[in-house]
């Protein structure tokens, strides 16, 4: 009886947003008299960082520090319509709506500044630190606070903007499936190393090497938490989770976390992530949604690694010790494949 190591690979792409379109999101942006901005949304923060990423997008677009922006969500009396936080659509759809709203508000702020500085608004730039100045002449400047104050108390302007983002609805041809699904794709590749015990059938994930292409990492820490957590979920789907009872009476189904199996901290494997960024032409600053796709490559990569280790194809999830043992027995013993063996020439970079 022995432990067998194996490596499995998978690569995927992932469509961002509700694929047929027709899923608008809106945003409203306005300034307090002192140049502090509120972004009003009805989008949901599930912990993925919706509020934070839209706050950075608004600040970047307005040309002001992130500390000067607060995102208020989600109250149907004050926030405009949003389809919801699902289908990896939050960053992409809401982010674009926020850009549009912030651009409109920024234009008013610059017009107000131009009037105060007695210059043309098209000659003005923001420095991202709370100042507006004439292009090439930093000394001719006004703070964003003073510009917003002047707009509201001297000039009678609302420093505000409205935004909506909508990918129009696509048709689907009933006979061929021709359609215009989504507007951008995220990508990933994953190499998983496992160890399989041919006596117990247990599979341990030892190591994960991945590359995720996310358009642009709008906030690298938020991207990291999504990728780390999502890969954990993929590993959990592959090896542990099911609402089905392991034995056939449906009354044996799990009702709590004692019998709904998931990996614990001791089951986690080191995950070495590389992030690539190829901006999506229609994404907010090129961003795509990393939240869903990060789990997907792990499931098949684990199944392929089990095959590499002991020569058993498990095509039915989850990959339980029982299925592995039955497969080994049917083959008359473990049959390691070692198709992705590390070579001595590897890793030179």
């Amino acid at each position, binding site marked *: 009886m022995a432990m067998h190591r194996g490596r499995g690979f998978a690569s995927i792409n992932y469509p961002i947003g509700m694929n047929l379109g027709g899923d608008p999101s809106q945003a409203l942006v306005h300034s307090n008299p002192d140049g502090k901005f509120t972004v009003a949304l009805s989008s949901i923060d599930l912990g993925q960082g919706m509020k934070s990423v839209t706050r950075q997008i608004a600040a970047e677009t307005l040309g002001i520090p992130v500390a000067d922006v607060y995102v208020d969500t989600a109250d*149907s009396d004050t926030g405009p319509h949003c389809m919801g936080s699902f289908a990896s659509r939050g960053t992409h759809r809401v982010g674009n709506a926020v850009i549009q709203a912030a651009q409109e508000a920024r234009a008013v702020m610059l017009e107000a500044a131009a009037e105060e500085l007695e210059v043309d608004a098209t000659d003005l730039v923001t420095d991202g630190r709370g100042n507006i100045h004439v292009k090439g002449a930093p000394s001719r400047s006004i703070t964003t606070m003073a510009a917003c104050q002047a707009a509201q108390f001297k000039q009678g302007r609302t420093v505000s903007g409205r935004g909506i983002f909508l990918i129009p609805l696509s048709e689907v041809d009933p006979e061929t499936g021709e359609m215009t699904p989504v507007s951008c794709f995220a990508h990933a590749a994953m190499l998983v190393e496992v160890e399989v015990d041919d006596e117990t059938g247990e599979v341990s994930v030892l190591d994960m090497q991945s*590359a995720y292409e996310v358009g642009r990492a709008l906030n690298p820490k938020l991207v990291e938490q999504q990728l780390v957590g999502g890969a954990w979920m993929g590993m959990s789907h592959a090896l542990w989770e099911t609402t089905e009872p392991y034995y056939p009476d449906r009354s044996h189904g799990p009702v709590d976390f004692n019998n709904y199996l998931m990996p614990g901290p001791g089951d986690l494997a080191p995950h070495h992530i590389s992030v690539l960024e190829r901006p999506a032409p229609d994404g907010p600053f090129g961003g795509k949604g990393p939240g869903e796709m990060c789990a997907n490559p792990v499931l098949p990569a684990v199944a392929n690694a089990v095959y590499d280790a002991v020569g058993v194809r498990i095509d039915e999830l989850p990959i339980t010790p029982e299925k592995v043992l039955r497969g080994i027995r049917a083959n008359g013993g473990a049959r390691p494949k070692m198709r992705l063996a590390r070579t001595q020439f590897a890793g030179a970079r």
Partner: protein
Amino acid sequence: MIEFRKEFFANERDDNLNEIGKPTRRQDILGHVTGRSPYFDDHLFEGLLHIRCVRSPHHHARIRRIDVSAAEKMPGVVRVLLGKDVPLNLNTLLSLLDFGLDDEPVLSTTKVAYKGEPVAAIIAESEAQARAAVLAVKVDWEVLPHVLDVEDAVKPGAPVVCDVYPSNKFIYHGKFDHQKLRYGDVEEAFARADHIVEGRYQMSPIEQAPMETCGAIAAPEVNDRFVCFTSTQGLFFSLGTAAKLLTMPSSRLHFVGGTVGGGFGGKVDSMHEPLAILGAMLTGRPCKYAWDREEEMQVGAPRGAERWYIKDGIARDGRILARKFTGYFDSGAYTRLSSYAIIKGVGHLPGPYTIPNVYADVFCVYTNRTPATAMRGFGITGVDFAIEAHMDKGAEMAGLNPIDFRILNSYRDGDMKAHRRLAKNCALVECCQVVAEKGGVVLTQASRAATSLLDGGGERARLPSRTATDQNGIVSGFKGGNYAKKGGGASGPQPVALPIAASAPTPASASLASVRPASPTYQPAATPPPAPQPPAPAADTARHGALRFSSLSGFRRR
């Protein structure tokens, strides 16, 4: 451990931005780490009532009688709700997109089609009292035969799960009992392939497992309105659903949410808000309806199980010539969102590879299981497991390293995809190369030199000269137009009309992604455009009070 490989696609980005790309701390972190961020369940009004549902113990049964007389007399019981108390007791979630027929009651009155289906709701002063009263409701069940397997469910003579779809299959476009994808001719390509690889893959149903279970608290507000604090993932989605079921204008509803203890797709179904608001309407008091962990796991909709059959035809050099799919999504007892997920899945086929012949039949199947719903990767995760496990077998059959096999077949900018649009903004090749390098896997010279930016388009941008179509699975008794025409379709790259003659010069491959053709050669099969439909009276009454975001399909039952 994370690294950012900025050298890739560097000329496509401006990395000198003020706020974008910065690891800025979360706006809401202080509230989260000090336990002060308010979730729906923190709105515990004085005098709050608690709702618990009476649920079916059977997979499939007719309801002969529901006797609530004993339950109504139990201590603390304020009111018992039955289906007749729900103003419009039938809905399908995607009716907000005009997609599919209303098929699911809030509280079932005539039959149940899954174990745990609610038939009555107890409103009581305490949760314990509500639980006790649930046990006192007597339901006279007539147990019916049930079906739990997708392929059993589509066999002739299988028990009918959902009367709206008597064949146990969702009807697409009012026309077919499955969604088709037809691109080229897979059978012709299989005949000339050097290797044939076949597989069957089964995904398990999976619980979203958020820390916070689903729920809502509703209360009467001043001026004849109702406030609803909710864990929903779609605030206006749930608001629209509640307005429809309660036949109430959206202006009388005030929804508050936005901070949710994990969703992962399980908080879209809007099961709690309508019942909590209905409770508040009928008692005049604040009402809470939330699942406990057992309900979250066994009644709350899981990620549905999917079964996929894949057949590949591969040439001697490792290129995939044809790929055929048959897929069965287990939707459980009702549609919820599975029908839409299938469209998403079909648009995703055959995965991130350029394959000149692709075929798929994908069925949304009703079984007597818990209705399925969204979960992280909805419509994609299951088929990606199938595709990538299958790719591993294909690589072995072709005698190639699994990473070389992917890169060889990977899609590149300007390639035609099976849904007849050009690929753009691709990065699969680069992801494969980075992982191979990190993992010490030596690739062929060709794989190392490959790039998503080049080598695509040209011949690879062509539509197949011929596509084999069919009328398999055609149905009658349903009518539906096509998807809405208004404003749609023009946002993405369109098919490039390349002449079929091989001698025609092809434009430079790199520029193909942005080319928009004057006249695509591809014409959908000779189907007359759907005739404008007179408004169906039944559907119009059913629409009463419903907020409709858009019109996806003119899908009505005759």
